[in-house]
């Protein structure tokens, strides 16, 4: 829902990093996005065209790597991907606790000219 603001930030970071590496053109930006971040790939792509226009990032390809949210069962200790409904452990039915997996939201690397 807030892709407008975060895509603007993403372009800013990408261009700054490209300039620091002595590049004037970004070919590809590889993003890692956790499922808990409430970020939709298509929406990022749409705003990216708008914000990248006239910058070193214009025309760059966006590669999205989605990371599923993982929970850890307090009863049996198993780590599991967040089920579509509820949070309970699929093995023993115990209560889950959120882990750090699924909160990612960063630029991993870029291909530049």
């Amino acid at each position, binding site marked *: 829902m807030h892709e407008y603001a975060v895509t603007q930030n993403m372009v800013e*970071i990408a261009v700054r990093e490209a300039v620091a590496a002595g590049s004037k053109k970004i070919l590809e930006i590889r*993003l890692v996005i956790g499922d808990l971040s409430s970020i939709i790939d298509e929406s990022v792509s749409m705003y990216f065209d708008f914000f990248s226009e006239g910058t070193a990032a214009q025309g760059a390809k966006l590669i999205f790597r989605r990371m599923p949210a993982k929970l850890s069962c307090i009863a049996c200790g198993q780590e599991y991907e967040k089920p579509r409904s509820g949070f309970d452990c699929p093995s023993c039915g115990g209560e889950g606790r959120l882990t750090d997996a699924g909160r990612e939201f960063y630029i991993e690397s870029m291909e530049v000219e």
Partner: protein
Amino acid sequence: MEIKVMKNIMDVNNKVADLNRDYFTEHGITVANVMASPGAGKTSIIMKLMELSKRRFSVIEGDIASSIDAQKIDGMGVHVVQINTNGGCHLDANMIHTVVEGDAGFDNSILFIENVGNLVCPSSFDLGEGLKLVIASVPEGHDKPFKYTSMFEAADVIILNKTDLLPYIDFDRDAFYKGIRTVNPEAKVFEVSCRNGEGLDELVKWIGGV
């Protein structure tokens, strides 16, 4: 040529949030970022706390448009600044930076930042606050911690409002608490009704000690 970046995209916001945090500390401002869906009772709870507690308060009102809430708070004689996001779904650190810096009306107070009514985006934007206060209300249903994981996970304090409606609504309290335990077992939870005053004493006592 490949370049490694490994930069958190929220860093742009987080850096300004850190500046805000320093400013708040230097000026004796304790900040609570108040988040909830529209109509959960953010303004009502803020107003009740300001009415019942002896502490000194100030408020920043975040709304997509209008200054209805700010006018109510201004009527109480409390320092209040309105931010209109003009369609934006959340407040960010820069918006807070712009209105806070140099405004002595906020100094040495508990500052409530009433975020835009939305259970999704505001949780991603650090404003430099010391406390995240999330309000849920009985008519919204008990499943909100399951559906809006990030918001409830981010909360330091969760307030369940409109408890006077419990007899009329199928709100499963056990399921609500189970959701909170899963996403945020450390959160402090209060149950209140702004309408009949139930539970407000404890909340007032808590805000008196922050």
